[in-house]
């Protein structure tokens, strides 16, 4: 294939137009009015990223104007939820700014539930309720209007970042291809902000066949954020962390509104509330066990113990919650019923369809919940991502190197799922963090006005590499009478299932109840190595769609490898309920209350592991 090469010269390049990317584009154009701000997205931004389907709540809002919460309160909550290790400078920074983003969403037309006094309706201490079916559409409109439609490249997938040949520790652009036409895109940029989301489908999911698609987190999140930045030499942190959501079974509908707003409880099949019957179990994990609220991993841990003892199914007692809250008032019951359905229909339509298909009426009967397969991400109750600088006025010297949210590669910024050790951002915090990264990126551009260079040899090499799967297919298709079974190549779908089997079998997937050990992880790494070889040498694609899937798979494999290497390095069980190192089953604060970092060296192909200190900033 001989694609047309499209060259785009810009100042600030935003890769990925989800919540963080839209925040970045919007903010970059404000501070960099005379700069060129470019946003590139593999889909259409009005329905892309984790909020594509909508949301029924905004999970991070402090209500500072009403004196509800302080950023310090937020740091204490988040630190405890992740069992004692977060970058408090980054968490604090999101918290102090996040309200302004939410107020802008409301200004742009997002319906937010209000109390009779005009305050936002609280779902929980940090969460507010919204009518969020069009949340992403509204936010995307703001980003697109701000930068101008001519600076938005949709249906272009970025596969690699480009380093400056005169200073390899500096970023100078990115490369990718159109998923619609035979075009290669080469972006040259002074600053690049990577906001391409977290990672799904690394593990064999609980559902199979068609159900592969029903990931809890957005299925279009393919680990690109982590893989591309690692390959460019940026340091990663906490990549051993993952998030295991407890959600309505199979449809993965949200439980937040049920637990927090509707005050529902979950019980096992014998009417026991595992949070009560397993209370003593928390004593093993002090000081985190006695914290209120109980950290998310430990709540998972309690539920898992019941399931492993065969006490499932675990049920959300929706019927009891609605009866109790309505108090027999039929009008109130109808309102609650509508709220319950909206909770699914605004963000997880599949769960509503599943209820209807199983004849489940939440006011009549309870509904099953379960623990999902692992997800690697930095924005929810998970904190994998890149190691970035914090804000100058908050961060100690160990956490500050010039520009907020800049990685260890000069000019390379990230936000949302991309920033590690800073969880609980959710949609509003991710948008806010995109804004923070963008303002710093504009300052970086002002300080570094000279032109960056592209390594043209590398661009040519990548062009050949990107489209090689087409050649592999054409060259070898004659070796078999069916395209799907051929000894000379591997198709992306086959590679995906192979990755999922490796990860589930060896890297603490749901199939082993999230348990692994040094020998298991080492064996997993060997098999990932063989998979990487096959993908490098023999990955085939038959059309642009399959080529997209191929490069998404490569990003997933790199993310998986980082995850395994990090789990291997952290010789403790920091987050029981997320994963267990059976050879090191305890939380080991004496040795491991610190960050695990890694860096990949492209020249040698080696990974270097290290630790960084946890510094407590908020008492």
């Amino acid at each position: 294939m001989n694609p047309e090469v499209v060259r785009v010269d810009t100042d600030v390049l935003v890769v990925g137009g989800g919540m963080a990317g839209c925040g970045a584009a919007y903010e970059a154009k404000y501070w960099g009015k005379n700069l060129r701000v470019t946003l590139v997205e593999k889909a259409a931004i009005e329905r892309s990223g984790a909020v594509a389907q909508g949301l029924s709540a905004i999970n991070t809002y402090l209500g500072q104007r009403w004196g509800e919460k302080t950023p310090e309160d937020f740091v204490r909550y988040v630190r405890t939820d992740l069992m004692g290790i977060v970058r408090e400078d980054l968490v604090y920074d999101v918290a102090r700014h996040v309200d302004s983003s939410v107020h802008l969403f409301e200004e742009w037309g997002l319906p937010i539930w209000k109390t009779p006094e005009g305050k936002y309706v609280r779902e929980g201490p940090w969460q507010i309720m919204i009518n969020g079916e069009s949340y992403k559409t509204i936010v995307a409109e703001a980003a697109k209007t701000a930068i101008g439609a001519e600076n938005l490249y949709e249906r272009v997938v970025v596969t690699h970042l480009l380093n400056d040949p005169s200073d390899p520790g500096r970023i100078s652009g990115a490369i990718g291809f159109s998923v619609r036409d035979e075009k290669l895109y080469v972006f040259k940029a002074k600053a690049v902000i990577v906001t391409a989301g977290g990672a799904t489908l690394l593990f064999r999911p609980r559902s199979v066949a068609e159900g592969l698609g029903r990931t809890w987190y957005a299925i279009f999140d393919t680990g690109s954020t982590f893989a591309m930045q690692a390959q460019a030499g940026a340091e990663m942190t906490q990549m051993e962390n993952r998030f295991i959501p407890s959600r309505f079974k199979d449809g993965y509908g949200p439980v937040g509104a049920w637990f927090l707003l509707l005050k529902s409880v979950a019980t096992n099949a014998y009417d026991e509330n595992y949070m009560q019957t397993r209370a003593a179990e928390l004593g093993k994990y002090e000081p985190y066990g006695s914290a209120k609220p109980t950290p998310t991993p430990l709540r998972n841990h309690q539920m898992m113990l019941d399931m492993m003892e065969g006490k499932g199914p675990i049920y959300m007692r929706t019927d009891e919650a609605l009866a109790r809250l309505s108090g027999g008032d039929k009008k109130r019951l109808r309102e609650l019923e509508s709220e319950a359905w909206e909770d699914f229909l605004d963000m997880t339509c599949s769960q509503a369809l599943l209820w209807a298909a199983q004849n489940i009426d939440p006011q009549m009967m309870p509904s099953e919940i379960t623990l999902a397969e692992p997800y690697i991400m930095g924005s929810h109750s998970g904190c994998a991502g890149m190691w970035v600088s914090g804000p100058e006025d908050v961060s100690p010297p160990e956490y500050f190197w010039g520009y907020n949210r800049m990685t260890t590669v000069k000019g390379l910024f990230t936000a949302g799922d991309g920033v590690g050790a800073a969880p609980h951002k959710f949609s509003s915090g991710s948008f806010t963090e995109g804004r923070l990264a963008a303002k710093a990126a504009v300052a970086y551009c002002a300080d570094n006005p000279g032109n960056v260079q592209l390594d043209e040899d590398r661009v040519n090499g990548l062009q050949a590499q990107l489209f090689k799967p087409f050649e592999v297919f054409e060259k070898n298709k004659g070796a078999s009478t069916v395209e799907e079974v051929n000894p000379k190549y591997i198709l992306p779908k086959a590679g995906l299932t192979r990755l999922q089997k490796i990860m589930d079998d060896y890297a603490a997937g749901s199939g082993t109840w999230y348990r692994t050990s040094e020998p298991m992880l080492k064996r997993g790494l060997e098999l990932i190595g063989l998979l990487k070889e096959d993908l490098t040498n023999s990955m085939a694609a038959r059309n642009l769609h399959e080529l997209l899937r191929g490069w998404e798979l490569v990003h997933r494999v790199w993310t998986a490898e980082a995850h395994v290497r990090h789990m291997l390095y952290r010789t403790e069980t920091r987050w029981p309920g997320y994963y267990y190192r059976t050879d090191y089953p305890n939380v080991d604060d004496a040795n491991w209350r610190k960050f695990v970092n890694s860096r990949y060296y492209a020249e040698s192909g080696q990974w270097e592991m290290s630790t960084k200190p946890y510094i407590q900033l908020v008492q």
Partner: protein
Amino acid sequence: MPSFVNPEKCDGCKAKDKTACQYVCPNDLMTLNKETNKAYNQEPDLCWECFSCVKICPTQAIDVRGYSDFVPLGASITPLRGTDSIMWTVQFRDGRIKRFKFPTRTKPEGSVVPYVGMSEASESELRTQELSGEPKWLGIPELPRMKK
């Protein structure tokens, strides 16, 4: 199968350069069969069932049949997305029907004004911690500083 297309209703968006479903699908699934001029989901097992294609289809030709590995047959959920609200019809397997209507936006599409009420950015403010429009849009007198 996740999303599927009713051939009686799909008109291929009248052979424009791209169909609405193809434009919007976040996972690059919806495709136009150029011979039949009908759209289809090219990779149903990677469909998130986000309903973006269902909502945008101008002829209401797209529906979702729940994932075959865990969703029993016979139910449907059907959205009708208007300019400021969305109406859902939920039909249970046993025939019961429920209808819900939820607001989606308080201002018309296309009305967003970026940086509304904000003064122009200055070079000196670029070095401060405040984001655009802060502290005004925070609703408090000043941006919090960490108490150390």
